[in-house]
């Protein structure tokens, strides 16, 4: 039996796809900003001299990095309500993505911090800077510059991973694809198109992040 491809029936669903893309971009943007912020905080805690703090953050990082995102998402969306925490689909999706990216970026940023030459920290201390000041003005900028490519890859992985948020009915791109194929019965065409759109999003995201990284960390120095 020969199968005849029909992509034309997808045109009617353009608004659905656009909505899905916009939601995927929104989820990614919000969770990138919050996730990286969490990662910076986590990395600071992980490298701090306060032992219990470093241990707790270490446990968080390992727990998240060794369990699937889908299970984290289900735990947050289906599990947390029994503790009285009820989240909307998109809130659960954002929370899961932030928690996930936070763990990975903690580990990535920590590697950048560990690569800071000791002399720079001592130089900062000799200028009378406090610990947090040294972290903010001496360590963080060059560290971020060094690990930016790794962080970029991780952010792209989180964006691609957001496709499973369709399973809690967050209406992003995969959800749109599921919806359309349930209407036009053309699953192959729909998923093919959605996959191509994800690929375009991934390429665009990588490009934007390298631009942002070039701007912010061009000289490897953070600006006050």
């Amino acid at each position, binding site marked *: 039996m020969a199968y005849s491809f029909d992509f034309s029936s997808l045109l009617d669903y353009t608004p659905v796809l656009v909505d899905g893309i916009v939601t995927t971009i929104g989820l990614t943007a919000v969770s990138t900003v919050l996730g990286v912020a969490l990662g910076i905080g986590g990395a600071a805690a992980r490298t701090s001299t306060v032992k219990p703090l470093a241990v707790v953050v270490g446990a968080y990082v390992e727990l998240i990095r*060794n369990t699937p995102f889908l299970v984290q998402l289900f735990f947050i969306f289906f599990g947390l309500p029994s503790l009285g925490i009820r989240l909307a689909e998109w809130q659960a999706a954002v929370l899961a993505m932030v928690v996930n990216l936070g763990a990975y970026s903690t580990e990535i940023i920590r590697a950048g911090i560990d690569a800071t030459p000791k002399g720079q920290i001592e130089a900062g201390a000799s200028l009378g800077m406090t610990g947090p000041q040294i972290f903010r003005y001496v360590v963080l900028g060059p560290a971020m510059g060094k690990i930016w490519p790794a962080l970029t890859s991780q952010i792209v992985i989180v964006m691609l991973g957001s*496709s499973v948020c369709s399973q809690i009915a967050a209406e992003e791109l995969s959800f749109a694809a599921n919806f359309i194929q349930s209407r036009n019965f053309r699953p192959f065409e729909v*998923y093919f198109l959605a996959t191509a759109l994800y690929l375009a999003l991934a390429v665009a995201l990588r490009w934007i992040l390298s631009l942002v990284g070039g701007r912010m960390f061009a000289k490897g120095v953070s600006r006050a």
Partner: protein
Amino acid sequence: MLEFTLWDILSNLLLAARWTVLLSLIAFVSGGVAGLLLLLARVSPVPPLRVAARLFIEVFQGTPLLMQLFIVFFALPLIGIETTAWTAAAVGLTLFTAAYLAEIWRGCVEAVPKGQWEASASLAMNFGEQMRHVILPQALRIAVPPTVGFSVQVVKGTAVTSIIGFVEVTKAGTMITNATFQPFLVYGLVGLIYFALCYPLSLSAKALERKLNVAR
């Protein structure tokens, strides 16, 4: 109403975890073989092969695993292969694993000094002989820690196959939740089972890396 004990839940999850482990092994082994072929194409002296391998890797690293699984699930019937959740999951994860492993191993091959290629070429070795006797043995040493590290991603990737209806531990968790109405407990246990599978792999990847750095 039927009552479920903790042991009822846990034992059923553990039974389902067998399929998570089996699928991980299949994907990792067959993905490793396919990844090796892909690597050979990626670093081969034949430009069209290189481009094709690169394209394959870019596409699989730039699209969600879920979409890859859906496409495999709906594309296999188009070329006359009957799909079950099993075949789609195994084929999809294999392709996914192959793309990532090929890219990881390419980095290891490129870490072998250029002089080794030139020296072996000057001994009149062809590409196959160079790879077999000179490059791969050296690349293999540094490839072990990141390969073990990536196996964690394969195990976690199997969770996504629950969405196309493959009954592994995540799917079992959903089914048990629907019967027991205890999502907090059930998904918590599911998470712990994954952790028990993945954490030893993560630890050994780290240990292998440390050993390698000391040896150098």
